C-alpha cells in the first residue's frame, strides 16, 4: 500500500523586493511522480519561487519544506536533495565540460573513482561524449543547456528544478531537451518553469499557472485545457458560402458562434457542459451543406493562460477547476 508522502510543501510563501511583491502568499504541494509545469507570464514570480525553493533567496515569510527539511533553516541538507538548472544554464565558461562536471561531482561529495563513475554516467545519459574536452563557452546553446542539465542530475537528485530549460533553443534542441527531461523524470519529482505552453502537454503531468505572485490555476494539462471556452466547441469549415451563422445560432444548447479567420469557417460554442456535435451534424445533413472540416475542440491552453493571467491582473477572483468557466464574448463573436 502506498502512503502518500509530500515531497515538497510550500506554505504561505511571500517574497518582497523593496516595494515590489514578487511572490504573494503562495501555497502548494508537489507529490511523488509529478512533473510540475510552472507557468506564468514574464515577471509572474516563477524564477523567484524557484530561487527560494533552491535556497538561493530567502523568503520574506512562509515555509518551504522538501522531504520534511526546512530549506531556510537547513539549506545544505535540502540542497543535497535538489538538482537545479538556473535560468540560462550558467556555468564556468573557461572550464572544459569534463572538468566542470568533475568539479560539480566533487562539490556533491563524491571522491576518487566515484567522481569518474558519476561523471561517466551523466555523460552517457545526456550524450556529451563529443564535447568533453571543449571549453564550455565555445559550445552551442543546446549543448550548454545539456551541460547545465548534466550538472543538475550528477548526484541523481530526488528533486529536479529546471528554470526555463528550453528557452532560446531551436525546435530540434527543444525536442531533445524535452525527451531528456521525460527520461529523467521517471523516479523523480520535477519542477519546470516555462512560458511555452506546448511544453506543458509534452512533458508535464500537472500545470500550475501563477500570475502576479499568486496561483491562478492548478490541474493536469487536460483539466486546464477544459477550462478554455473552446472546450467542446465545434469547428467547421464549409466549402461554399452560405448563411450558416443564424442557423447554427438557432440550434439548442449553442451559446454563440464565431466566424473563423479562413473563409466559411466557424467556431460554435456550446452552453457550458453541453455537447453540440450531434446537433451541428444534423443541421449540416439537413441543409445538405458540403463540409471540408469538422472537429470538436479539446480546449486551448494558450486561451486558458490568457484568460487566467489577464483576469488576475484585473483583480478578479481565482478560477477553480470544478467551476465551469463561462464563455465570454470575444471579438470574433457574431
Amino acid at each position, binding site marked *: 500500500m502506498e502512503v502518500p508522502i509530500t515531497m515538497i510543501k510550500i506554505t504561505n510563501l511571500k517574497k518582497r523586493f523593496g516595494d515590489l511583491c514578487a511572490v504573494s502568499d503562495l501555497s502548494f504541494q508537489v507529490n511523488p511522480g509529478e512533473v510540475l509545469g510552472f507557468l506564468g507570464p514574464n515577471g509572474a514570480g516563477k524564477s523567484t519561487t524557484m530561487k527560494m525553493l533552491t535556497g*538561493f533567496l530567502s523568503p520574506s515569510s512562509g515555509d518551504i519544506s522538501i522531504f520534511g527539511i526546512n530549506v531556510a533553516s537547513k539549506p545544505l541538507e535540502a540542497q543535497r536533495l535538489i538538482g537545479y538548472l538556473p535560468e540560462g544554464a*550558467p556555468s564556468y565558461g573557461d572550464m572544459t565540460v569534463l572538468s566542470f562536471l568533475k568539479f560539480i561531482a*566533487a*562539490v556533491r561529495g563524491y571522491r576518487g573513482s566515484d567522481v569518474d563513475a558519476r561523471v561517466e554516467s551523466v555523460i552517457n545519459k545526456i550524450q556529451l561524449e563529443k564535447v568533453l574536452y571543449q571549453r564550455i563557452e565555445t559550445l552551442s546553446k543546446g549543448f550548454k543547456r545539456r551541460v547545465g542539465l548534466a550538472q543538475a542530475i550528477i548526484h541523481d537528485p530526488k528533486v529536479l528544478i529546471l528554470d526555463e530549460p528550453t528557452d532560446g533553443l531551436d525546435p530540434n534542441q527543444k525536442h531533445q531537451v524535452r525527451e531528456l527531461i521525460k527520461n529523467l523524470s521517471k523516479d523523480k519529482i520535477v519542477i519546470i518553469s516555462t512560458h511555452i505552453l506546448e511544453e506543458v502537454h509534452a512533458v508535464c503531468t500537472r500545470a500550475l499557472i501563477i500570475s502576479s505572485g499568486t496561483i491562478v490555476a492548478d490541474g493536469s494539462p487536460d483539466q486546464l485545457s477544459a477550462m478554455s471556452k473552446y472546450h467542446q466547441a465545434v469547428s467547421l469549415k464549409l466549402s461554399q458560402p452560405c448563411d450558416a451563422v443564424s442557423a447554427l445560432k438557432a440550434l439548442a444548447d449553442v451559446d454563440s458562434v464565431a466566424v473563423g479567420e479562413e473563409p466559411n469557417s466557424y467556431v460554435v460554442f456550446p452552453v457550458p457542459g453541453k455537447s453540440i456535435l450531434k446537433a451541428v451534424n444534423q443541421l449540416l445533413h439537413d441543409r445538405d451543406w458540403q463540409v471540408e472540416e469538422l472537429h470538436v475542440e479539446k480546449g486551448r491552453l494558450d486561451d486558458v493562460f490568457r484568460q487566467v493571467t489577464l483576469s488576475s491582473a484585473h483583480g478578479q477572483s481565482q478560477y477553480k477547476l470544478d467551476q465551469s468557466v463561462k464563455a465570454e464574448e470575444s471579438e470574433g463573436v457574431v
Partner: protein
Amino acid sequence: MNGLIVVLKRELAAYFLTPLAYVFIVIFLILSGIFTFYLGRFYERGQADLVSFFNFIPWLYLILVPAVAMRLWSEERRSGTIELLMTLPLTLFEVIVGKFLAAWLFVGLALLLTFPTWITVNYLGQPDNGVILASYAGSWLMAGGFLAVGSCLSAATKSQVVAFIMTLVICFTFVASGFPMVQDAFSHWAPVWVLDGLSVLSFLSHFDAISRGVIELRDIVYFLVMIGAWLMATGIILNMKKAD
C-alpha cells in the same frame, strides 16, 4: 571543510585557464625588477639587503592585487554562476574563504617567483636572510589584506572595472593613512587618538614593522583581523545583493 578545498582547487586552476595568471605574473616580475634595480638603485646602494625591493612592494600590490581581486565575485554575479554556486551544498564560509585563499595562494606564487632577486643578493653579499624572510611574510600578509578588501568590493558590483577602482581607492587609503603627509593634515586639529588610529590602521606601518625583521604578534593579528573583517563584509554584501 571539504567544500572549501574543492572550491579552492577550482578557483586556483581557473586562474591558469585564462591569460590573467600569466599576464599578472609576468608584469609583476618585470615591474618588481624595474623598481628594485632602477628606481631602488639596488646596485648603487651597495648594501646586501632587499630593502629596495620591499619598499616598492606595497605600491606594486596597490595596482596589481585589485586586478586579481576584481573578478572574485563580479564575474560570478555577471555570468549568473553565483546562482549555481550558492545552490550547491556549500556554506557561504566555504565559498568565500575558498575563493579568497585561492587568490591569496596565487599572489603568493607570484611573490615566490621573485626568488632570483633573493639569489642575486645572496650571491653578491651576506644579507640577513631572516629579515628577508620576514619581509616576504609581511608582503604576503599585506597582499591578503588587499585581496580581502577587493573580495568585498567585488561582491558589491557586477562590473569588474568598478570593483578594481573602488578596491584601489580603499587600499590606497589604508596604505597612505600612516603617511607623514596624511598625518600632518590631521595633526593640527585632530585629537591624538585619531592620529594613532590612523597610523594603527595603516597597511604600511604594519608592513614596515614586519619587514624590519621584527615579527610581532600585533602586526600579524592586524592583518588577520583585517582579512577576517573584510571577508565577513563580503558575506554580508553577498547575502544582500546576490539576487540583483
